[in-house]
């Protein structure tokens, strides 16, 4: 409908006009949408980083806007973009890359790479984190707060079950074996401690990806227009996951909330959990017992998904603002800040030079668990990322939920999901 796009164009022009008006006055002010999506006082850390950036760059003012969860952040920033008032930059899921490109909302990072220093900085990111940041030979996102899933266990519970508290399960069979020993039931048969828990309330495809990678498969292609939900590797991975609850009865049946999963661990209601590496700091601070942390157990091979947020620079703002945004993003993701961010939040620093900083090395020495996500980097696979990613993710999440609650078999659930995903994606092929 021309009337609507016309109006949006009008709004965009209006927005651009406003921005120009503001840009005349120094210093350049940029706004930064940041999803507060992790336990702990993250906002203070961000504010502190911004303050130091502003001191070093007095001509730039950064306004941080804490925008809720990732999905709220992309909604809000796309909303603002369509209304002609986009933020200059935002941290959004790396997996939403194609959605952002399809909406024409983001600018390629390559446009800002001018000096040798810029080039060296860009080349410093670990390749696996760049997979989700590139499309058609252009780089669109800057890896910032990336994560993966890691495996935690309660050492006290291991001792009680007669297991060696210092060694976690190394493969799928051992997980079932350990979890069976760790699942405790009271006299009337009600479970008081589950052996294993894997969260599944949001973005459960992400945890499935770990199982699929370990099983030698993949759930989607890299150009984001074809999913492989109904392949044997995916179905077997989901079968294994659902079996934990429905066949072996060592995991709480039904959908398990992300938010309560660590809490269940602290309360002693779950002896082993898989959760995001972003929870390292949270577990370290709140677990009232000694715990172990390791890479995900293997099957045919090792494997784990990446996740988390990239920094994206928006279209539709004045060039000098975009340039200022790039400067801020580059500063934020250079070795020292990257290491600091990783230490304070538990996200993986996505660059090797960050792991070599003195601060990081000292931290890993003091808390060896922090090195686990880094050790897992060689085995990582990129997070599911397709066109209309929110919708496709919802489709596979629905399928996983159906399998976990027992309303469909894993094979049926994945077949239905593949069909739905095809319906959405066929127009992009």
């Amino acid at each position, binding site marked *: *409908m*021309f009337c*609507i*796009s016309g109006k949006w164009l009008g709004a965009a022009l209006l927005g651009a006009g406003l921005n120009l008006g503001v840009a005349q006055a120094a210093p350049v002010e940029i706004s930064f949408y940041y999803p507060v999506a992790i336990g702990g006082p993250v906002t203070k850390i961000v504010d502190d980083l911004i303050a130091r950036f502003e001191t070093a760059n007095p001509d730039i003012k950064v306004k941080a806007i804490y925008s809720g969860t990732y*999905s709220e952040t992309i*909604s809000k920033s*796309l*909303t603002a973009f369509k209304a002609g008032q986009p933020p200059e930059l935002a941290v959004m899921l790396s997996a939403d890359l194609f*959605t952002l490109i*399809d*909406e*024409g909302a983001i600018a390629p990072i390559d446009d800002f790479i001018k000096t040798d220093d810029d080039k060296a900085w860009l080349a410093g990111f670990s390749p696996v984190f760049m997979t989700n940041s590139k499309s058609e030979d252009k780089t669109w996102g800057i890896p910032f707060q990336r994560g993966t899933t890691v495996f935690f266990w309660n050492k006290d519970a291991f001792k009680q079950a007669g297991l060696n508290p210092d060694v976690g399960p190394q493969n799928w069979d051992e997980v079932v074996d350990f979890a069976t020993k760790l699942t405790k039931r009271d006299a*009337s*048969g*009600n*479970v008081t401690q589950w052996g294993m828990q894997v969260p*599944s*309330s*949001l973005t459960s495809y992400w945890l499935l990806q770990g199982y699929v990678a370990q099983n030698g498969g993949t759930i989607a292609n890299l150009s984001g227009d074809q999913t492989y939900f109904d392949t044997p590797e995916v179905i077997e991975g989901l079968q294994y996951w659902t079996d934990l609850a429905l066949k072996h009865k060592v995991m*709480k*049946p*039904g*959908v*398990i*909330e992300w938010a*309560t999963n660590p809490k*269940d661990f602290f*309360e002693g*209601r779950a002896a082993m959990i898989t959760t995001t590496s972003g929870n390292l700091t949270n577990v370290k601070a709140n677990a009232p017992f000694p715990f172990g942390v390791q890479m995900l157990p293997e099957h045919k091979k090792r494997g784990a998904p990446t996740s988390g947020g990239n920094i994206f620079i928006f279209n539709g703002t004045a060039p000098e603002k975009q340039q200022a945004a790039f400067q801020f993003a580059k500063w934020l993701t250079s070795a020292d800040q990257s290491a600091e961010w990783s230490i304070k939040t538990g996200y993986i620093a996505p660059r090797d030079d960050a792991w070599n900083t003195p601060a990081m090395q000292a931290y890993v020495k003091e808390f060896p668990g922090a090195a686990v996500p880094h050790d897992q980097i060689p085995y990582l696979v990129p997070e599911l990322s397709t066109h*209309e990613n*929110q*919708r496709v993710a*919802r489709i596979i*999440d*629905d*399928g996983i*939920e*159906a399998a*976990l*609650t027992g*309303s*469909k078999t894993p094979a049926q659930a994945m077949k*239905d999901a593949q069909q*739905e995903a095809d319906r959405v994606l066929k127009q992009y092929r």
Partner: protein
Amino acid sequence: MTQGRNQITAWLLLLPAVVLLAAFTHVPAVMTLFNSFYNTPRGVRPAKFVGIGHYTDMLSDPVFLAALKNNAIYAIGTVPVAIGLAMLMALIVNSSIRGKAMLRMSFFLPTILPMIAVANIWLFFYTPGYGLIDRFLGMFGFAERNWLGDGSTALGSLMVLAVWKEAGFFMIFYLAALQQISPSLGEAAALEGAGRWYFFRRVTFPLLMPTTLFVLINAIINSFRLIDHVIVMTRGGPDNASTLLLYYIYQTAFRFWDTGYAAALTMVLLALLALLAFVQFGILDRRVHYK
């Protein structure tokens, strides 16, 4: 005053209301119909006419069908229970029981609190294992239940919250109606030796009929309108077991950015509401007045 001047004054008085209502109710309703025949523009690609394509897609869209079914279950499950409880509460508060004010307060309090606030609190009650409900049931030997994470209980859990939240609100309407029933009716009935149940069935209940109709319609509208608790507690899951129509519209429009399809979904909701209006004005209203 001439007739002509009166006309002008009347329209001037109406102007602000008419403009605003047209801008945010009538025009959008018509535009929704119009836009439901187009797909969603993305980036540089403009919207394209797809005819009734969205509507035929809907028939094979499992999420839409689930939302429709859930909304029916939700309305049929919550509305009569809330109304029955509301009537009971009104009778209690209107009786001579001691501590009426306290009872009235506890019934009415959930109504004035934001749904989002109470939904957050109830989220904890439903937590498996150590949530309030599981610990209470645990005292009687029940196993823990994953209330919100299990397709068979998720919608029911939302419905319980909705009844708790809304019954007190409807109680108010019954209370107002009860206070208009003349006490002499009761005295006369007592003299004739009528039992209380008999009196309720033959006198009070019929007299409350117009209120019941009013509350019924409002309760049904609310069951389509209020989705705050879905957003907080289940996000429609697991596997769309608790998704409601308006939540699916919200998701489609503001999570998937598919406004064309969302417009078509909105039309379905509008059609349902129109049907409701027709039932109210056309059929039920007439019957009730004959009573």
